[in-house]
């Protein structure tokens, strides 16, 4: 279980998170929605300790992550970055198998490669892509390699930052199904950021909406449509008219 308690983060005068409180129960799929630039990616990075919050607490299974042993803590996580963040000096399969080639999960090269190719297949990439370099792939393909890397070591908790952005509708469907599968079959806890409402409906158990640095609304995905919250309703319907300003 992940808990964020009154987390604040500012970059200079830009107050991005202004008291985020959110609980993600174990084994559930939480989707975070919210306008562009509201701090969704920053929130994920705070949990991972890549950005240190100014104030507030983040707990993993009741333990403060700031005090946890870093290696053991990170070994439980997988993360898909918004921009892919593939290592461009390594080939695709070496990227995917990064964790399996070094450190405590190290295994023989042939075996690591096999696992990598299997994970690539699950995100809809052929074995031929395995020996290419990230720079030789399209944007959507890079995204999927990043996804394969995030799930390669079968982590307990997985963060997906916009997994379906830049993918065609069919491939987006495949990825949505994959994320659902990972949560249901492997019992993983997932936290996904997305702007794609069909993706929200496909993968979420719960939805949280971030607005103005706070969680505006959170609840089960089934209650999303008749929440009665004008902000959430405007976001779901994608209307230009409503309480959320278009310029922010």
């Amino acid at each position, binding site marked *: 279980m992940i808990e964020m308690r009154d987390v604040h983060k500012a970059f200079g005068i830009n107050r991005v998170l202004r008291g985020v409180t959110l609980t993600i129960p174990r084994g559930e799929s939480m989707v975070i929605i919210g306008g562009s630039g509201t701090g969704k990616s920053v929130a994920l990075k705070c949990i991972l300790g890549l950005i240190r919050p100014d104030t507030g607490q983040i707990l993993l299974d009741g333990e403060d992550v700031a005090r946890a042993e870093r290696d053991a803590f990170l070994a439980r996580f997988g*993360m898909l970055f918004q921009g892919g963040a593939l290592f461009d000096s390594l080939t695709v399969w070496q990227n995917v198998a990064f964790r399996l080639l070094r450190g405590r999960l190290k295994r023989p090269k042939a075996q690591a490669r096999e696992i990598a190719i299997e994970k690539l297949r699950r995100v809809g990439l052929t074995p031929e892509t395995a020996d290419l370099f990230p720079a030789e792939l399209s944007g959507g393909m890079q995204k999927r390699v990043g996804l394969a890397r995030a799930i390669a070591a079968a982590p307990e908790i997985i963060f997906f930052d916009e997994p379906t952005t830049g993918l065609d509708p069919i491939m987006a469907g495949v990825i949505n199904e994959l994320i659902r599968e990972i949560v249901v079959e492997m019992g993983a806890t997932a936290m996904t950021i997305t702007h794609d409402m069909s993706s929200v409906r496909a993968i979420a158990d719960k939805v949280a909406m971030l607005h103005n640095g706070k969680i505006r609304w959170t609840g089960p995905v089934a209650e999303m449509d008749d929440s009665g919250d004008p902000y959430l309703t405007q976001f779901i319907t994608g209307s230009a008219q409503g309480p959320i300003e278009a310029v922010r």
Partner: protein
Amino acid sequence: MTFVLAPFAAVGRSTLAMLATIGSVAIYCALTLNHLLRPPFYFREFLSALLAIGYFSLPVVGLTMVFTGGALALQIYAGGARFNAESVVPQIVAIGIVRELGPVLTGLMVAGRVSASIAAEIGTMKVTEQIDALVTLSTNPLKYLTIPRVLAATLVVPLLAAVGDIIGVLGGYLVSTSRLGFTPAVYLTNTWDFLEAADMVSSLAKAAVFGFIVALMGCYHGMNSGRGAQGVGRATTNAVVSSSILILASNYLLTELFF
């Protein structure tokens, strides 16, 4: 009033910023030294750093030193002629190259080539979140990126400097024998008899320090690169400038220490 104080505030601000940078470089340096010989050690990264820093710098260093050695011979001949001491060319070329110009010019050329490319590579990784990705994949960027490069540079720049010394002396030899009328055998004997072990040791020791500085500055500025292409550009410039200045400053201190 603020109008009068503004220049003082500006001086104060940049002084504080400079002190802060010195502090953070020192901390980074201490961290690097602390982790230098502790596992895990990434051997593949170390080998590719050896190749990039050492092997691929050979042409640059070789060309620099052959021309420098040649020019040095001409200058010493011209200077020596003023008090009828033209015959000291081999000895002074050897001393000048081995004790001073070999390690310093090698260090500066490597600073231009290597610290720039390290800073650009690591800076780009930082900007594209690859450093963050490393962390989430349970890999310490200091161990994976910095240590192999710093260790490789510290070990391989002395070798480069040794090759540079030899090529520099060779440059002096070529010019002296072909243009200044020295006999090849005599020139070589004079050079060889004159040099002492201490000269070579100091040359290599200086080069090791310069190698360390170059890689450390490249990594430091890359890791602290600002955002976007502009941030990487600035990191690259800072890496080259700071490593060059540190090389020249530490060269003076080391020379004081050795002689």
